[in-house]
């Protein structure tokens, strides 16, 4: 069976094994030569079961010769030296693919593992602090949508601003933080890039003195000062993006890579947490207040928040190391109280209206 690659006409042909493979028409006009294929240019291609399908690199690219007779097939196999050579369907070399893939994967992973954190650090330093504001603003609307309404009370608000103002005197962030108290059962507080500070009323309810709240807030301000939010975004965003794009959505590999990424980000966030703790200690001490109340507050919070959203402890577990660090070199209260008793009461009452 022969197809000349220029039309779909099926022709029955006779083969002659001369210097080259001569393909001649058997139907009328009988004997007319259709094609002549050099033996070393003949390649095997995919055909049906039981049929040997051949192509030729010097013929029209889609010309096909199909052989079912076993004797002729044996002949072809004997005479054609390069049936599986280039241009045909050659068995793919799996070990080569595997080793090439592993090499590529290793190279990409190395770039991501070492390069991405480094790149994130460098970029964070270079990007102006003001650029973080759009990021914070963008997340602000979602945070409010997720957590709850802002508690509004003039006295409580004044107290909160005074507290944060004292912290800002010591911390001296490039942009003064703007605190917001949101009504939520979740005991957490966080600061977003650009200086927005959110305190959730669940945390406020459990705090027993201004020092406790102030210590936790200054920890969060430490993250802002160190620009941890932006750095983490760049690092994790860049990593996810690259890895997801390159390796595709394949079961298995994705999970393996994600695990690796978690290891990486966990170790980085440990370092960031320790630095934020140190910042908090520094701020509290410069205000003349002790830093260990933070540990007391965190110890009071156990488990997850009632809405199922994990408490502050999920991101900042209270390990013995951390407690020890807070207690080391701690000073007794030497400076003025951060808030007067009346102000503290006003603040505590803010969300019960």
């Amino acid at each position, binding site marked *: *069976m022969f*197809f*000349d*690659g*220029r*039309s*779909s*006409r*099926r022709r029955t042909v006779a083969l002659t094994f001369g210097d080259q493979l001569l393909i001649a028409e058997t139907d009328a006009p009988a004997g007319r030569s259709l094609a002549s294929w050099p033996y070393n240019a003949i390649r095997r*291609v*995919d*055909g*049906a*079961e039981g*049929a040997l*399908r051949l192509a030729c690199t010097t013929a029209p690219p*889609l*010309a*096909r010769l*199909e052989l079912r007779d076993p004797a002729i097939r044996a002949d072809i196999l004997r005479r054609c030296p390069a049936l599986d050579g280039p241009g045909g*369907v050659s068995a*793919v070399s*799996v070990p080569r*693919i*595997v080793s*090439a*893939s*592993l090499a*590529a*994967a290793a190279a990409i992973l190395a770039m991501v593992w070492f390069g991405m954190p480094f790149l994130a650090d460098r970029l964070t330093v270079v990007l102006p602090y003001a650029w973080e504001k*759009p*990021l914070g*603003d*963008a*997340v602000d*609307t*979602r945070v*409010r*949508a997720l957590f709850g309404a802002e508690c509004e009370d003039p006295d409580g608000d004044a107290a909160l601003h005074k507290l944060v103002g004292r912290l800002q005197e010591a911390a001296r962030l490039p942009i003064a933080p703007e605190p917001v108290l949101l009504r939520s059962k979740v005991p957490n507080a966080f600061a977003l890039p650009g200086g927005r500070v959110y305190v959730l009323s669940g945390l406020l309810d459990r705090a027993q003195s201004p020092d406790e709240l102030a210590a936790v807030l200054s920890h969060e301000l430490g993250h802002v000062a160190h620009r941890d939010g932006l750095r983490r975004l760049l690092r994790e*965003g860049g990593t996810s*993006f690259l890895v997801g*794009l*390159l*390796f*595709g*959505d*394949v*079961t*298995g*590999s*994705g*999970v*393996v*890579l994600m*695990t690796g990424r*978690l290891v990486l980000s*966990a170790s980085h966030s440990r370092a960031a947490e320790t630095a934020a703790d140190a910042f908090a200690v520094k701020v509290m001490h410069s205000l003349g207040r002790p830093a260990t109340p933070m540990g007391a507050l965190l110890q009071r919070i156990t488990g997850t928040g009632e809405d199922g959203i994990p408490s502050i402890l999920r991101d900042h*577990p209270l390990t013995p190391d951390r407690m020890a660090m807070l207690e080391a070199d701690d000073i007794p209260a030497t400076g003025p109280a951060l808030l007067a008793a009346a102000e503290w009461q006003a603040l505590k009452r803010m969300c019960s209206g």
Partner: protein
Amino acid sequence: MSVAAISTDIVPDAPLAFTGNNGVFRRLVTRGALLELITFGFYRFWLTTDIRRHLWSHTEIDGDALEYIGRAKELLFGFLIAISVLGPLFLAYFVLGLEFERYKAFASLPLYLLLLAFGRFAAYRARRYRLTRTIWRGVRFWMTGSGWSYAARSVLWWPVLVPSLGFAYPWQSAALERYKLRHTLYGSLPGRFEATGWQLFKRVWWVWLLGLLPWLLLFGGFVAEFSTTGGGGQRPPPSGDAGSGMVAGYAIVLGCLGLVALPFLHAVRRAKEWAWWTAGIRFGNIAVACRLRPGGLIGTYWKLTGLGLLVFLGYAAAAAGLTAVLHSPAPVGGAFEMLLHGRLPVWGFAAYLAMYLVLGIVLGVLARIYALHRVWQRVVAACAVINIACAADVAAAGDVVSAFGEGLADGLDFGL
């Protein structure tokens, strides 16, 4: 010629045959899945090519097998080129998304729709690549037309499709198939699509309705439940509404039962769609007749669902066993943090991970075997070509296109 006229008056003269061996394919896909795992996914280009070669070369029309001449290298290059486009695109998507979010919360969702539309463009181009690598009797299939035009048409149907809860799908499908087949050619023989949306709607509307019912019941049930029992305690519970509470409960139970019927309904719908689609294809005077009965695919999809459930149950049992051994109460999600805090031994974590990977691989292999190979087998076996003589002497035409579309589809996570 109308579709009805063809299937009753004219006897098909050229059978379609599928000669692929189930065992061979199973080995191919299993080996491929394992290789995909150890090559971090890079092997997928070779696996896809091999799967297509198997399917194409075992499909015979009038005694002559199709041939797939695409190569894995083409897919790899297409993918690399696509990344160079997708990289900046995703970055722009992220930045624009931020800007939209500042304006209003969740306002960046429409951007996601743009990505979906781009996915339609990629699908058209990918189809073009596959067709130009399909040879039958030495002549190539190819496509004209524009991917952007196709994407635009797809998008225009969405505002109709969503509000109609999917009932408008037959007309959307007919319109898009008409576009695709109008621009598909076999050599110099142009194609067209002659089935209508109404024909499909007549056959599947009840299947679709039955499929929607469980979801509607569940949704309604949960909504009623929360509004009668007062939800999270924020509002005081209303005084005694036991009647509607019970109705809600029944609705939920019925809904769950209905979900069990979904594979059955899906199989029936797919069988009808295949029969409708094949009967609408024309190339010149050539048509296809399909004898696939509505129940023809039920066995296949049920096997897939059943085996999938068994595998998942096996995984759950193994995970539970491991949890019992380790005396740890955390699910897999929390396993990593437990590892960090020293409460989970490394081998325990590795075991969880391994089980999860095996689950993923087995499910993927099952999907390829049943949803792809077996369905292909059954559809092809039920089809026959009419007026095959018209294909006796078609002049060759058409040229190859790059695998850019395939690469895009891969990067956007679609595709075969």
